[in-house]
Protein backbone atom coordinates (compact mmCIF):
# COMPACT_ATOMS: atom_id res chain seq x y z
CA UNK A 1 0.00 0.00 0.00
CA UNK A 2 2.67 2.52 1.03
CA UNK A 3 4.65 1.44 -1.99
CA UNK A 4 1.77 2.09 -4.36
CA UNK A 5 1.08 5.52 -2.91
CA UNK A 6 4.75 6.43 -3.13
CA UNK A 7 5.00 5.25 -6.74
CA UNK A 8 1.88 7.11 -7.77
CA UNK A 9 3.06 10.30 -6.06
CA UNK A 10 6.55 10.05 -7.54
CA UNK A 11 5.27 9.55 -11.07
CA UNK A 12 2.93 12.49 -10.65
CA UNK A 13 6.03 14.45 -9.62
CA UNK A 14 7.84 13.00 -12.65
CA UNK A 15 5.20 14.39 -15.02
CA UNK A 16 5.55 17.72 -13.25
CA UNK A 17 9.33 17.66 -13.65
CA UNK A 18 9.03 16.85 -17.35
CA UNK A 19 7.08 20.10 -17.65
CA UNK A 20 10.37 21.91 -17.19
CA UNK A 21 11.70 20.67 -20.49
CA UNK A 22 10.97 23.76 -22.54
CA UNK A 23 7.63 23.54 -24.29
CA UNK A 24 7.01 24.67 -27.82
CA UNK A 25 3.75 26.53 -28.13
CA UNK A 26 2.16 25.95 -31.49
CA UNK A 27 0.26 28.52 -33.48
CA UNK A 28 -2.99 27.55 -31.81
CA UNK A 29 -1.86 27.52 -28.22
CA UNK A 30 -1.77 23.89 -27.11
CA UNK A 31 1.90 23.27 -26.32
CA UNK A 32 4.07 20.42 -27.53
CA UNK A 33 5.27 19.14 -24.19
CA UNK A 34 7.35 16.32 -22.75
CA UNK A 35 4.60 15.83 -20.20
CA UNK A 36 2.72 13.63 -22.64
CA UNK A 37 5.81 11.38 -22.61
CA UNK A 38 5.35 11.26 -18.84
CA UNK A 39 1.79 10.08 -19.36
CA UNK A 40 2.97 7.30 -21.66
CA UNK A 41 5.66 6.25 -19.15
CA UNK A 42 3.07 6.09 -16.38
CA UNK A 43 1.24 3.53 -18.46
CA UNK A 44 4.19 1.50 -19.72
CA UNK A 45 6.03 1.39 -16.38
CA UNK A 46 3.37 1.54 -13.68
CA UNK A 47 0.68 -0.30 -15.62
CA UNK A 48 -2.96 0.58 -16.16
CA UNK A 49 -4.34 1.28 -12.70
CA UNK A 50 -1.38 2.87 -11.00
CA UNK A 51 -0.50 4.76 -14.17
CA UNK A 52 -3.96 6.26 -14.49
CA UNK A 53 -4.01 7.14 -10.79
CA UNK A 54 -0.66 8.91 -11.03
CA UNK A 55 -1.97 11.02 -13.91
CA UNK A 56 -5.20 11.74 -12.02
CA UNK A 57 -3.24 12.83 -8.97
CA UNK A 58 -1.16 15.13 -11.15
CA UNK A 59 -4.31 16.68 -12.65
CA UNK A 60 -5.85 17.09 -9.22
CA UNK A 61 -2.84 19.10 -8.10
CA UNK A 62 -3.06 21.23 -11.23
CA UNK A 63 -6.74 21.81 -10.56
CA UNK A 64 -6.25 22.92 -6.98
CA UNK A 65 -3.88 25.59 -8.15
CA UNK A 66 -0.33 24.30 -8.42
CA UNK A 67 1.67 25.52 -11.42
CA UNK A 68 2.68 22.09 -12.65
CA UNK A 69 1.82 22.22 -16.35
CA UNK A 70 4.60 23.16 -18.75
CA UNK A 71 5.39 26.83 -18.58
CA UNK A 72 4.29 26.98 -14.94
CA UNK A 73 0.60 26.97 -15.75
CA UNK A 74 -2.16 25.49 -13.64
CA UNK A 75 -5.36 26.24 -11.81
CA UNK A 76 -8.92 25.65 -12.91
CA UNK A 77 -8.57 27.81 -15.99
CA UNK A 78 -6.71 25.18 -17.99
CA UNK A 79 -9.67 22.84 -17.64
CA UNK A 80 -11.89 25.21 -19.62
CA UNK A 81 -9.16 26.18 -22.07
CA UNK A 82 -8.68 24.50 -25.45
CA UNK A 83 -6.15 22.10 -23.80
CA UNK A 84 -8.89 20.66 -21.60
CA UNK A 85 -9.78 17.76 -23.88
CA UNK A 86 -6.21 16.52 -23.88
CA UNK A 87 -5.90 16.86 -20.13
CA UNK A 88 -9.10 14.86 -19.58
CA UNK A 89 -7.75 12.27 -21.99
CA UNK A 90 -4.46 11.84 -20.11
CA UNK A 91 -5.60 9.35 -17.46
CA UNK A 92 -7.46 7.29 -20.06
CA UNK A 93 -4.37 7.32 -22.26
CA UNK A 94 -2.21 6.07 -19.38
CA UNK A 95 -4.74 3.39 -18.51
CA UNK A 96 -5.05 2.00 -22.02
CA UNK A 97 -1.30 2.16 -22.61
CA UNK A 98 -0.70 0.27 -19.39
CA UNK A 99 -3.43 -2.26 -20.12
CA UNK A 100 -1.89 -3.14 -23.46
CA UNK A 101 1.59 -3.60 -21.95
CA UNK A 102 0.12 -5.78 -19.22
CA UNK A 103 -1.73 -8.02 -21.59
CA UNK A 104 0.30 -8.24 -24.79
CA UNK A 105 3.22 -10.43 -23.86
CA UNK A 106 4.10 -12.17 -27.10
CA UNK A 107 6.32 -9.48 -28.64
CA UNK A 108 9.51 -7.72 -27.54
CA UNK A 109 8.87 -5.10 -24.88
CA UNK A 110 10.27 -2.22 -26.93
CA UNK A 111 7.69 -2.90 -29.60
CA UNK A 112 4.84 -3.55 -27.18
CA UNK A 113 5.46 -0.43 -25.11
CA UNK A 114 5.96 1.68 -28.23
CA UNK A 115 2.78 0.46 -29.91
CA UNK A 116 0.84 0.73 -26.65
CA UNK A 117 1.99 4.33 -26.34
CA UNK A 118 0.82 5.03 -29.87
CA UNK A 119 -2.59 3.51 -29.27
CA UNK A 120 -3.13 5.01 -25.83
CA UNK A 121 -0.99 8.12 -25.99
CA UNK A 122 -1.82 9.15 -29.55
CA UNK A 123 -5.05 7.63 -30.90
CA UNK A 124 -7.04 7.72 -27.69
CA UNK A 125 -5.49 10.93 -26.38
CA UNK A 126 -6.18 12.73 -29.66
CA UNK A 127 -9.79 11.61 -29.63
CA UNK A 128 -10.24 13.47 -26.38
CA UNK A 129 -8.12 16.39 -27.53
CA UNK A 130 -10.06 16.83 -30.75
CA UNK A 131 -13.40 16.86 -28.96
CA UNK A 132 -12.03 19.39 -26.48
CA UNK A 133 -10.74 21.70 -29.19
CA UNK A 134 -13.91 21.47 -31.18
CA UNK A 135 -16.05 22.38 -28.17
CA UNK A 136 -13.90 25.18 -26.91
CA UNK A 137 -13.09 26.78 -30.27
CA UNK A 138 -16.47 25.93 -31.77
CA UNK A 139 -14.98 24.04 -34.69
CA UNK A 140 -16.08 20.82 -36.37
CA UNK A 141 -14.29 17.64 -35.37
CA UNK A 142 -12.62 17.49 -38.78
CA UNK A 143 -11.30 21.01 -38.43
CA UNK A 144 -10.04 20.28 -34.93
CA UNK A 145 -8.36 17.10 -36.20
CA UNK A 146 -6.50 19.23 -38.69
CA UNK A 147 -5.04 21.33 -35.89
CA UNK A 148 -4.04 18.31 -33.84
CA UNK A 149 -2.09 16.76 -36.70
CA UNK A 150 0.73 19.13 -35.79
CA UNK A 151 1.47 16.93 -32.74
CA UNK A 152 1.79 13.65 -34.60
CA UNK A 153 5.49 13.70 -35.37
CA UNK A 154 6.51 14.69 -31.87
CA UNK A 155 4.23 12.17 -30.25
CA UNK A 156 5.42 9.31 -32.46
CA UNK A 157 8.96 10.12 -31.36
CA UNK A 158 7.81 10.18 -27.74
CA UNK A 159 6.15 6.80 -28.16
CA UNK A 160 9.42 5.45 -29.55
CA UNK A 161 11.30 6.84 -26.57
CA UNK A 162 8.74 5.36 -24.17
CA UNK A 163 9.21 1.97 -25.84
CA UNK A 164 12.99 2.07 -25.64
CA UNK A 165 13.07 3.42 -22.10
CA UNK A 166 10.68 0.78 -20.84
CA UNK A 167 12.72 -1.99 -22.42
CA UNK A 168 15.99 -0.56 -21.09
CA UNK A 169 14.49 -0.32 -17.64
CA UNK A 170 13.24 -3.88 -17.83
CA UNK A 171 16.79 -4.99 -18.54
CA UNK A 172 18.52 -2.89 -15.92
CA UNK A 173 15.89 -3.22 -13.20
CA UNK A 174 13.31 -5.86 -14.11
CA UNK A 175 11.45 -5.51 -10.82
CA UNK A 176 10.63 -1.88 -11.46
CA UNK A 177 8.58 -2.40 -14.62
CA UNK A 178 5.39 -3.03 -12.71
CA UNK A 179 3.25 -3.37 -15.80
CA UNK A 180 5.08 -6.65 -16.34
CA UNK A 181 5.53 -7.75 -12.74
CA UNK A 182 3.40 -10.80 -12.12
CA UNK A 183 2.45 -9.83 -8.61
CA UNK A 184 0.27 -6.79 -8.86
Amino acid at each position, binding site marked *: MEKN*VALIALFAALIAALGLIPKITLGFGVPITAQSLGVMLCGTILGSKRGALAVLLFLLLVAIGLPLLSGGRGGL*GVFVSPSAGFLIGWPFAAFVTGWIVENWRSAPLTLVAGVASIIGGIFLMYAFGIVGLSVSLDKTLIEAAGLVSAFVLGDVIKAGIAGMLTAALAKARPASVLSRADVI
Partner: protein
Amino acid sequence: MISLTSPTKTWAHSWPAGAKLAGLCIATLGLFFLQSVPVHAAVFAVVLGLYALPGRAFFVSGLRKLQLLWPFILIVAIWHVWSGQMAEGAAVILRLMSAVALANLVTMTTRLTDMIDVVRFLARPFARFGLRSDILELAIALVIRLTPVLIQKGNLLSQAWRARSRRRAGWRIILPFTILALDDADQVAEALRARGGFNT
Protein backbone atom coordinates in the same frame (compact mmCIF):
# COMPACT_ATOMS: atom_id res chain seq x y z
CA MET B 1 6.36 25.06 -4.45
CA ILE B 2 4.23 28.15 -4.57
CA SER B 3 0.60 27.69 -5.52
CA LEU B 4 -1.13 30.03 -7.91
CA THR B 5 -3.16 31.60 -5.12
CA SER B 6 -2.72 35.36 -5.24
CA PRO B 7 -0.68 36.89 -2.41
CA THR B 8 -2.92 39.96 -2.68
CA LYS B 9 -5.66 39.24 -0.14
CA THR B 10 -9.19 39.79 -1.44
CA TRP B 11 -12.59 39.48 0.19
CA ALA B 12 -13.11 36.38 -1.91
CA HIS B 13 -10.26 34.65 -0.07
CA SER B 14 -12.56 34.18 2.90
CA TRP B 15 -15.56 32.87 0.97
CA PRO B 16 -16.18 29.16 1.28
CA ALA B 17 -14.17 27.37 -1.40
CA GLY B 18 -16.99 24.93 -2.11
CA ALA B 19 -19.41 27.74 -2.92
CA LYS B 20 -16.89 29.40 -5.23
CA LEU B 21 -16.34 26.16 -7.09
CA ALA B 22 -20.06 25.43 -7.40
CA GLY B 23 -20.63 28.97 -8.65
CA LEU B 24 -17.85 28.55 -11.17
CA CYS B 25 -19.40 25.35 -12.52
CA ILE B 26 -22.76 27.00 -13.02
CA ALA B 27 -21.28 30.12 -14.57
CA THR B 28 -19.11 28.13 -16.99
CA LEU B 29 -22.05 26.00 -18.03
CA GLY B 30 -24.12 29.12 -18.50
CA LEU B 31 -21.49 30.65 -20.79
CA PHE B 32 -21.97 27.79 -23.23
CA PHE B 33 -25.67 28.56 -23.60
CA LEU B 34 -25.17 32.23 -24.32
CA GLN B 35 -24.98 33.16 -27.98
CA SER B 36 -25.43 36.90 -28.09
CA VAL B 37 -22.23 38.88 -28.59
CA PRO B 38 -23.31 41.93 -26.53
CA VAL B 39 -24.18 39.68 -23.57
CA HIS B 40 -20.81 37.94 -23.86
CA ALA B 41 -19.10 41.29 -23.99
CA ALA B 42 -21.00 42.40 -20.91
CA VAL B 43 -20.06 39.24 -19.06
CA PHE B 44 -16.42 39.71 -19.93
CA ALA B 45 -16.54 43.33 -18.80
CA VAL B 46 -17.98 42.23 -15.46
CA VAL B 47 -15.22 39.63 -15.11
CA LEU B 48 -12.60 42.27 -15.81
CA GLY B 49 -14.30 44.45 -13.20
CA LEU B 50 -13.94 41.65 -10.68
CA TYR B 51 -10.23 41.48 -11.46
CA ALA B 52 -9.89 45.22 -11.02
CA LEU B 53 -11.55 45.35 -7.58
CA PRO B 54 -8.61 44.06 -5.48
CA GLY B 55 -6.25 46.58 -7.01
CA ARG B 56 -3.64 47.00 -9.67
CA ALA B 57 -1.25 44.19 -8.78
CA PHE B 58 -4.03 41.62 -8.82
CA PHE B 59 -5.43 42.94 -12.11
CA VAL B 60 -2.06 42.80 -13.81
CA SER B 61 -1.21 39.30 -12.67
CA GLY B 62 -4.67 38.14 -13.71
CA LEU B 63 -4.31 39.60 -17.20
CA ARG B 64 -0.89 38.06 -17.53
CA LYS B 65 -2.44 34.63 -17.03
CA LEU B 66 -5.06 35.38 -19.70
CA GLN B 67 -2.33 36.41 -22.07
CA LEU B 68 -1.55 32.72 -22.58
CA LEU B 69 -4.72 32.50 -24.65
CA TRP B 70 -3.57 34.81 -27.44
CA PRO B 71 -2.70 32.05 -29.92
CA PHE B 72 -6.21 30.62 -29.65
CA ILE B 73 -7.74 34.02 -30.02
CA LEU B 74 -5.63 34.76 -33.05
CA ILE B 75 -6.45 31.52 -34.79
CA VAL B 76 -10.17 31.81 -34.12
CA ALA B 77 -10.13 35.42 -35.25
CA ILE B 78 -8.34 34.64 -38.50
CA TRP B 79 -10.63 31.72 -39.12
CA HIS B 80 -13.81 33.72 -38.66
CA VAL B 81 -12.64 36.75 -40.56
CA TRP B 82 -11.78 34.42 -43.40
CA SER B 83 -15.16 32.67 -43.26
CA GLY B 84 -16.98 35.92 -42.72
CA GLN B 85 -18.81 34.79 -39.54
CA MET B 86 -17.57 37.64 -37.39
CA ALA B 87 -20.29 37.51 -34.77
CA GLU B 88 -19.78 33.81 -34.03
CA GLY B 89 -16.05 34.42 -33.82
CA ALA B 90 -16.44 37.22 -31.31
CA ALA B 91 -18.74 35.08 -29.19
CA VAL B 92 -16.27 32.18 -29.16
CA ILE B 93 -13.38 34.41 -28.20
CA LEU B 94 -15.27 36.24 -25.46
CA ARG B 95 -16.66 33.02 -24.05
CA LEU B 96 -13.22 31.45 -23.94
CA MET B 97 -11.71 34.44 -22.19
CA SER B 98 -14.54 34.74 -19.66
CA ALA B 99 -14.51 31.03 -18.83
CA VAL B 100 -10.76 30.88 -18.32
CA ALA B 101 -10.69 34.19 -16.45
CA LEU B 102 -13.45 33.10 -14.05
CA ALA B 103 -11.73 29.80 -13.35
CA ASN B 104 -8.42 31.55 -12.77
CA LEU B 105 -10.20 33.94 -10.46
CA VAL B 106 -11.31 31.07 -8.24
CA THR B 107 -7.80 29.66 -8.24
CA MET B 108 -6.30 33.03 -7.37
CA THR B 109 -8.63 33.62 -4.46
CA THR B 110 -8.64 30.19 -2.85
CA ARG B 111 -5.91 28.99 -0.53
CA LEU B 112 -4.39 25.59 -1.14
CA THR B 113 -5.56 24.27 2.23
CA ASP B 114 -9.14 25.30 1.44
CA MET B 115 -8.90 23.52 -1.90
CA ILE B 116 -7.66 20.41 -0.14
CA ASP B 117 -10.64 20.59 2.21
CA VAL B 118 -12.93 20.60 -0.82
CA VAL B 119 -11.06 17.63 -2.26
CA ARG B 120 -11.55 15.79 1.01
CA PHE B 121 -15.26 16.59 0.94
CA LEU B 122 -15.63 15.50 -2.66
CA ALA B 123 -13.69 12.31 -1.99
CA ARG B 124 -16.09 11.24 0.76
CA PRO B 125 -18.64 9.49 -1.46
CA PHE B 126 -15.85 7.46 -3.03
CA ALA B 127 -14.85 6.00 0.33
CA ARG B 128 -17.00 2.96 -0.39
CA PHE B 129 -14.84 2.26 -3.44
CA GLY B 130 -11.77 2.22 -1.23
CA LEU B 131 -10.62 5.83 -1.69
CA ARG B 132 -9.32 6.98 1.67
CA SER B 133 -9.22 10.73 1.98
CA ASP B 134 -6.30 10.63 4.42
CA ILE B 135 -4.26 8.77 1.81
CA LEU B 136 -5.32 11.19 -0.89
CA GLU B 137 -4.25 14.13 1.24
CA LEU B 138 -0.95 12.50 1.98
CA ALA B 139 -0.39 11.84 -1.72
CA ILE B 140 -1.02 15.51 -2.46
CA ALA B 141 1.48 16.55 0.20
CA LEU B 142 4.00 14.07 -1.19
CA VAL B 143 3.82 15.49 -4.71
CA ILE B 144 4.19 19.03 -3.41
CA ARG B 145 7.18 18.02 -1.35
CA LEU B 146 8.89 15.76 -3.88
CA THR B 147 8.48 17.66 -7.13
CA PRO B 148 11.19 20.21 -6.24
CA VAL B 149 13.44 17.43 -4.95
CA LEU B 150 13.05 15.50 -8.18
CA ILE B 151 13.58 18.60 -10.29
CA GLN B 152 16.77 19.36 -8.40
CA LYS B 153 18.04 15.84 -8.99
CA GLY B 154 17.11 16.16 -12.65
CA ASN B 155 19.15 19.34 -12.87
CA LEU B 156 22.12 17.59 -11.35
CA LEU B 157 21.77 14.79 -13.88
CA SER B 158 21.75 17.13 -16.82
CA GLN B 159 24.78 18.88 -15.37
CA ALA B 160 26.46 15.50 -15.07
CA TRP B 161 25.81 15.08 -18.77
CA ARG B 162 27.14 18.50 -19.63
CA ALA B 163 30.22 17.87 -17.51
CA ARG B 164 31.27 15.28 -20.05
CA SER B 165 29.73 16.59 -23.22
CA ARG B 166 29.73 19.65 -25.40
CA ARG B 167 26.09 19.19 -26.22
CA ARG B 168 23.12 19.52 -23.93
CA ALA B 169 21.55 16.45 -22.43
CA GLY B 170 19.19 14.69 -24.77
CA TRP B 171 16.24 12.49 -24.04
CA ARG B 172 18.64 9.84 -22.83
CA ILE B 173 18.75 11.23 -19.32
CA ILE B 174 15.08 10.41 -18.97
CA LEU B 175 16.07 6.81 -18.22
CA PRO B 176 18.34 7.60 -15.24
CA PHE B 177 15.81 10.22 -14.22
CA THR B 178 13.05 7.63 -14.15
CA ILE B 179 15.30 5.35 -12.14
CA LEU B 180 15.85 8.16 -9.63
CA ALA B 181 12.09 8.53 -9.30
CA LEU B 182 11.67 4.79 -8.76
CA ASP B 183 14.43 4.79 -6.13
CA ASP B 184 12.82 7.72 -4.38
CA ALA B 185 9.52 5.87 -4.39
CA ASP B 186 11.16 2.91 -2.62
CA GLN B 187 12.61 5.16 0.02
CA VAL B 188 9.50 7.20 0.56
CA ALA B 189 7.46 4.02 0.93
CA GLU B 190 9.81 2.94 3.68
CA ALA B 191 9.69 6.32 5.38
CA LEU B 192 5.90 6.06 5.41
CA ARG B 193 5.96 2.56 6.80
CA ALA B 194 8.49 3.58 9.43
CA ARG B 195 5.96 5.99 10.83
CA GLY B 196 2.96 3.79 10.84
CA GLY B 197 2.00 3.58 7.20
CA PHE B 198 -1.67 3.17 6.45
CA ASN B 199 -2.56 0.21 8.60
CA THR B 200 -2.67 1.81 12.01
